[in-house]
């Protein structure tokens, strides 16, 4: 069950121009959370900003009873959040929403992150690896192609987590919009490239794409997945008020009407979504 709790800040450090990594202590959240879920953070005392801010779980560490967020300072809320001192307590509501569904029977797991969309992929990659390891128990070996991570960023400075992700998956492909680092171009182009050149038709059927990032990128990924008939889960963003399904504020259009990103999502099957 999700919980609203004051969580102590254990680590809080800038990891790029306006990017921060924030580790918080909470047994309840750390032991319950699933990759793809998020927390609603009260960024400052008082009522400015008024609403909590949704941030994905970047890493989940039930052993140490901690979880980590990775966020970019983009406005008032995240700006104030960045001021939280180590040792201070932050008011957190979580874990919230419906995360990624991991089917360890699938052979190839393609994780695609654009911009801050990379944040939830770390927790996902770790969990995929754990579940695959369990599933593959007999030979105890996870082949590199099983876990494929593609991350895209505006430019070199904005590339996040490459090192962290490489520790989990040997195949981490970075692309930047301006070509200042890794491949030049959109991460969706990289995805298509890999599918075309590295996966057979058979392996498409036993593959799954998980993607998180800006809406246009998700749309492109969904189109590729549909065209190649690959299972695809997308993590969406929408402005939220309650975060728990009560206010109907975070609607997204699906083939069966409006669904709530905070409760029915943030992760949806790409084929259920209606892109405008």
């Amino acid at each position, binding site marked *: 069950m999700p919980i609203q709790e004051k969580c102590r800040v254990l680590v809080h450090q800038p990891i790029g121009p306006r990017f921060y990594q924030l580790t918080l202590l909470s047994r309840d959240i750390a032991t319950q959370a699933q990759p793809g879920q998020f927390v609603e953070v009260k960024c400052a005392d008082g009522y400015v900003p008024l609403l909590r801010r949704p941030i994905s779980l970047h890493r989940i560490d039930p052993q140490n009873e901690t979880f980590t967020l990775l966020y970019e300072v983009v406005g008032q809320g995240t700006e104030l959040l960045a001021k939280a001192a180590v040792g201070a307590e932050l008011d957190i509501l979580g874990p919230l929403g419906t995360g990624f569904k991991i089917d360890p029977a699938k052979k190839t797991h393609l994780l695609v992150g654009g911009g801050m969309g990379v944040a939830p992929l770390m927790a996902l990659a770790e969990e995929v690896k754990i579940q695959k390891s369990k599933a593959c128990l007999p030979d105890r070996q996870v082949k590199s192609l099983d876990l494929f991570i593609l991350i895209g960023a505006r430019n070199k400075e904005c590339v996040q987590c490459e090192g962290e992700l490489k520790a989990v998956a040997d195949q981490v492909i970075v692309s930047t919009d301006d070509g200042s680092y890794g491949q030049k171009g959109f991460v969706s182009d990289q995805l298509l490239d890999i599918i075309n050149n590295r996966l057979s038709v058979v392996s498409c059927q036993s593959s799954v794409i998980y993607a998180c990032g800006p809406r246009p990128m998700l749309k492109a990924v969904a189109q590729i997945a549909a065209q190649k008939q690959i299972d695809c889960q997308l993590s969406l963003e929408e402005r939220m008020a309650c975060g728990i399904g009560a206010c109907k504020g975070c609607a997204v259009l699906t083939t069966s009407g*409006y669904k709530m990103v905070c409760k029915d999502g943030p992760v949806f099957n790409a084929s259920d979504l209606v892109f405008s």
Partner: protein
Amino acid sequence: MVASGTFGWGKEYSEYMDLNKLGAIVTKSITLKPREGNPPPRIVETPSGMLNSIGLQNEGLEHFLKEDLPFLAKFDTPTIVNIAGETVEEYAELAKRLSKETMVKAIEVNISCPNVKQGGMAFGVDPGLTKQVISAVRNATKQPIIAKLTPNVTDITVIGRAAVEAGADALSAINTIVGMALDLETGKSRLGRETGGLSGPAIRPIAVRMVYELARAVKVPVIGIGGIMTGNDAVEFLLAGARAVQVGTANFVDTAAPLRILAELHDYVHRHPRTLNLS
């Protein structure tokens, strides 16, 4: 009490608190037919407030009676069902159907909805339409009726009096204030619809004033709503003449808000045994 539309059907918040401890639960507005709601985005934050354009998304009366009401029935807390319609007949039909549900302790009539037959003007901005709606509900049910007033009017006491004359047993005020926020990149509304409803602390001074005016204009109890975040805020409404309050936007900020505010209110009464009698 928790305000309509901010507490879902109670279920969502039942994981965070003991619903039995609430004064009353006001449901989200229920319409006769299911409603899809407005296109996203539906939420924008503004200085000390928020705009919403939910568009009364709900699955309709039938679904409510079958799925949601039974859940609420499990708690001691009185359920107040908030209804919304596009025509006078819809309001009457909703009230008639609900009048058979003994565990519905009162009906709150959301008259801020656009009147589809008459060009989309909200019922609650016109004393005549207000009377029609409330009379129709009055004739359809013996349950207590709370008329929930919209603040988007020149003189809220005119509407309040009309509602009372038509048979409202209490008034609640205020619903959200129509507002708008534009995106500086696109020049378009930051909501899926052009305008939305402003709620939260920003509107509190306006809400307190309207409750104050109403409490002096009518004899029935007035329920204060608008930007209540703390026990002190609730006290302000009680001092203005409200007999009860509803907590709305605060639920989003703090799942413990209603119970915290209740505790803070008790605290205040304890410290100021007489101030509240002054009003």
